[in-house]
């Protein structure tokens, strides 16, 4: 009984706190002085890059380093999951085997749905340079496709061998490598040579899509089991 009361008090306190912050934000924003943002500048500079889509220009060029770190966050999250859920536990917890036979309709649909999914993902990747879309959306779609396959086919996720691990970090490494190459070409870190800018950005986006897709797949499905209960890369 007392615990319930405490819980309620806690809830009320939290609610009060949240509403205070919310109210404060409203008041703050109402009183906020307005100064022009950088939108105009973005629009004026992006033509330089031959990227018609301002969001992509911001994400991959102007604030590319932010994006790079976000990818690192994603990879870090997957590693955290690998640490948190050791493969043996994941296997025990994942109710993948057994169960009723899958619906024949689904079995008919999925092989036909997958190419569409991949096609749409590719479209989003390609669209990124000229209209809304880009690596993140495409990658997530790839991840979703993988999840669909694994769920419907009663498959376990692939063993996280060297190739899969390489794909997982491919986007990050590629981004870093291109960033550092910019340095070698006598320009700044993360700077793309003018004529190559679009191609390089597309390349980065492609690798990022793959990595993001794999990341999301792993985050959703937990950890793929390996032959032995070991962290990837360990040799005894």
């Amino acid at each position, binding site marked *: 009984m007392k615990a319930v009361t405490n819980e309620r008090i806690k809830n009320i306190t939290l609610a009060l706190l949240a509403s205070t912050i919310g109210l404060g934000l409203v008041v703050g924003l109402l009183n906020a002085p307005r100064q022009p943002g950088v939108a105009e500048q973005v629009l004026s500079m992006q033509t330089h890059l031959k990227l018609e889509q301002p969001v992509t220009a911001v994400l991959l060029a102007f604030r590319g380093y932010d994006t790079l770190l976000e990818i690192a966050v994603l990879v870090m999250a997957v590693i955290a999951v690998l640490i948190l859920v050791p493969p043996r536990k994941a296997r025990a917890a994942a109710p993948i085997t057994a169960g*009723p036979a899958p*619906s024949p*309709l*689904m079995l008919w*649909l999925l092989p*036909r*749905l997958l190419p*569409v999914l991949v096609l749409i993902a590719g479209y989003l990747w390609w669209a990124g340079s000229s209209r809304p879309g880009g690596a993140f959306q495409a990658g997530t779609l790839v991840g979703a496709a993988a999840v669909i396959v694994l769920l419907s086919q009663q498959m376990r996720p692939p063993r996280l061998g060297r190739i899969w691990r390489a794909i997982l970090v491919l986007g990050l490494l590629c981004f870093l490598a291109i960033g550092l190459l910019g340095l070698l070409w006598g320009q700044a870190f993360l700077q793309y040579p003018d004529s190559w800018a679009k191609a390089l950005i597309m390349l980065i986006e492609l690798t990022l899509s793959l990595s993001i897709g794999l990341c999301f797949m792993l985050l959703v499905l937990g950890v793929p089991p390996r032959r032995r209960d070991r962290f990837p890369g360990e040799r005894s």
Partner: protein
Amino acid sequence: MLADVLTLALVALGCWFFLSGTLGLLRFPDVYTRLHALTKADNLGLGLVAFGLLWQAPDWPTAVKLLLVWLLGVLASTTAAHMVGRAALGAGQSAWRAEP
């Protein structure tokens, strides 16, 4: 002009199907009947809306996309309905019968 009339008519019809689907979902007594109301309604509803809007499409890629959306919607909805129904059956949920 004809296009606009077509759009108006088809979309309005689509709306009607959506409404009936929703009402069916609310009013029908068990999973299987609701399934029936729902999928019929929203496949048709979505299809009619998509076809209605087809006449407003500025270029052919947009039109293709509209059709693709409808196609995928139908497939997804149908498969999902089948899966849910199968699962409900597999789980042994009894069907509703009219009271004698």
